[in-house]
């Protein structure tokens, strides 16, 4: 895929924060060498999943242009985003890429009527004129299952969390964007309301051709809505591929643990084994080898020494030594036989 075909393209994107403690400074790599792309001609929902502190939000903020990358390239519609002028960023980029935040009640002022946000966004970005703005906003609200009549004159406290979050999506839609970046849009909502939000993402993709980057730690809704899933761990994308592959048959041990940790609404499927939690989170960020090695049930000697590369065993990307054809299978078997090792054989084919 060349740069011109991609809607959004991240190339070896990294962000380093410096943490100062007294006189000493330490580096903290929040996003480490992330490469992914969203095609322009084929709208999709890309879910970014991972535990808290895995760099999901920093990644989103870089895509939104709120955080400047430390290294790597970020192209949107073929243009290098770090080189946009302030004016272009405001009138072109912010119109094309719209954010949706975690807590809708924090995103809207409680003292302002909700519709004012929709009007302001539509008029300021020039997607509607005074004459057409009502119809424009009503249409945006209709795509998320609301109408202007329902919210007109209302304040945030008069709406439920689900309605507020849908209004936030409608607000983002008033600029006719081509990409929505939704950072944990459902984590503040009841499980039963989540489906309404996730369903509206699906509708948006199908009916309006809007791509969505859906950042979440809720794997079940990610699987339900997303076309592709990127699993993040301590700044790395450790697995990236179609949702059916990544969550249907996870390859990376971390994805496997994530999948098995989703509480199934079925008491017959309770967990029987225990899970190891990260004890020292900061150490994992600066690990020399694989960042998951200390917690991985299949860790080998090589894992704590050498960082794995991005491997493509069966059409998806996996960052794990277990799927490296250069590492002898005997070692992997010793480390643990439970992981399906078949993809190693198909590496040559792909």
């Amino acid at each position, binding site marked *: 895929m060349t740069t011109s075909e991609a809607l959004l393209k991240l190339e070896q994107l990294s962000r380093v924060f410096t943490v100062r403690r007294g006189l000493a400074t330490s580096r903290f790599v929040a996003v480490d060498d992330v490469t992914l792309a969203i095609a322009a001609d084929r709208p999709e929902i890309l879910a970014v999943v991972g535990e808290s502190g895995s760099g999901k939000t920093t990644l989103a903020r870089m895509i939104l242009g709120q955080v400047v990358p430390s290294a790597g390239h970020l192209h949107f519609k073929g243009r290098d985003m770090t080189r946009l002028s302030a004016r272009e960023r405001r009138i072109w980029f912010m119109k094309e890429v719209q954010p949706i935040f975690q807590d809708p009640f924090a995103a809207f002022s409680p003292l302002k009527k909700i519709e004012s946000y929709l009007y302001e966004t539509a008029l300021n970005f020039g997607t509607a004129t005074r004459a057409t703005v009502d119809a424009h906003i009503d249409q945006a609200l209709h795509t998320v299952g609301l109408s202007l009549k329902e919210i007109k004159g209302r304040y945030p406290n008069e709406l439920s969390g689900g309605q507020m979050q849908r209004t936030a999506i409608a607000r983002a839609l008033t600029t006719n964007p081509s990409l929505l970046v939704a950072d944990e849009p459902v984590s503040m909502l009841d499980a039963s309301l989540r*489906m309404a939000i996730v369903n509206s993402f699906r509708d948006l993709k199908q009916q309006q051709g809007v791509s969505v980057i859906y950042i979440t730690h809720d794997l079940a809704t990610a699987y339900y809505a997303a076309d592709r899933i990127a699993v993040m761990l301590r700044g790395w994308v450790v697995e990236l591929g179609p949702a059916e592959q990544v969550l249907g048959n996870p390859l990376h041990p971390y994805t496997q643990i994530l*999948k098995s940790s989703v*509480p199934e609404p079925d008491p017959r499927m309770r967990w029987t084994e225990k899970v190891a939690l990260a004890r020292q989170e900061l150490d994992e960020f600066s690990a020399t080898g694989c960042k998951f090695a200390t917690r991985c049930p299949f860790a080998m000697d090589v894992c704590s020494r050498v960082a794995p590369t991005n491997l493509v065993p069966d059409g998806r990307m996996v960052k794990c030594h277990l799927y490296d054809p250069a590492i002898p299978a005997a070692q992997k078997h010793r480390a643990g036989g439970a992981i399906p090792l078949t993809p190693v054989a198909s590496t040559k084919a792909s």
Partner: protein
Amino acid sequence: MHIVANINDLRAYYITEAYGVRRTVKAVDGLSIAIRQNEIYGIAGESGCGKSTLLKVLLGMLTPPLTIVGGSVTYNFEGEPVDMASLSQAELRAMRWKELSYVPQGSMHVLNPVRRIRDTFRDFIGAHVRAPRREIDERVRAYLVELGLPDKVLGSFPHQLSGGMRQRVTIALATILSPRLIVADEPTTALDVVVQRGVIQLLQEIRERAGNTMVVVTHDMGVHANLTDRVAVLYAGQLMEEADTPTIFAQPRHPYTQHLIRSLPKIDDRSERVSIPGRPPALDNPPGGCRFHPRCPYAMEVCKTEVPLIEQVGPNHRVACWLINEERMGRIAARLANAEPRPLATDTQLTPQRPSPGGARSAGGPEGAIR
């Protein structure tokens, strides 16, 4: 079976009066549940269903405008049962953390941000146990190691810990004095799945080790399925259904319970899922009849006017729904028509019962009052 806490026909309202306008929010309205010893009792329902108010009452945290209008909460830890309303503030304070403990929702906001974790532990324990500081520190360290937490956290400030670690520290704080009843309000919400699993594991371990009883409130049915022994489903301050966890997931009888369970997406299943439109009613003016009827896909005429009775549909399984009532009544009618008429009162299984206020105060039969 020993009942640790008995809630009988509880009515807890928020009563406010401002500029002569009186407003009553019926957050918990006529609720009767009995919590058994050493069980994990789950309370499910959407936001605004009265879950948190129930917890406040259970913990005796009654500050205006929250007022108990009717019913009672009886603790039965050791010896004589105690009516919560009869306890003074000082007595309640002495009970808290030692016998009655609380794991709050937002662990960021409950730990003092300017005190190290060690000092918070000292405060907690020092309020109940007279012991030298060294001894307390040693006990805290031993307890953290027992729970699999690094003792390094003791020297940290809350902001230096991750969300999952803070939540686990909060649980350790709440349980270190081996309380008899632990009440947890959304203990895993806003945690990611692996940490959530760790917290569920931790709660189960503590229950097994200390033999205490837990009440866990969460809207996440997945957590209920993995953690609890029994589940009560609340809606608009009233009990809709209560059963053993396997039963409620295998045979949910109330339409609301069915919706809660079936609306959840599952991995390996991408079929379309819809959520019931609408939201829980405002509790200052709840709808008449069954409170779920405006959202219920099976609503009948009777649902709009009459409140359904709580009926026993199986061992340990209670449901308040006219569908069940109708079914029952239909069967009774059929039986009356076919067979010899016989007095309904002897058929305890089929008699709808309304929990009677005051009936559970006798020490002997709190369970009996509910059946």
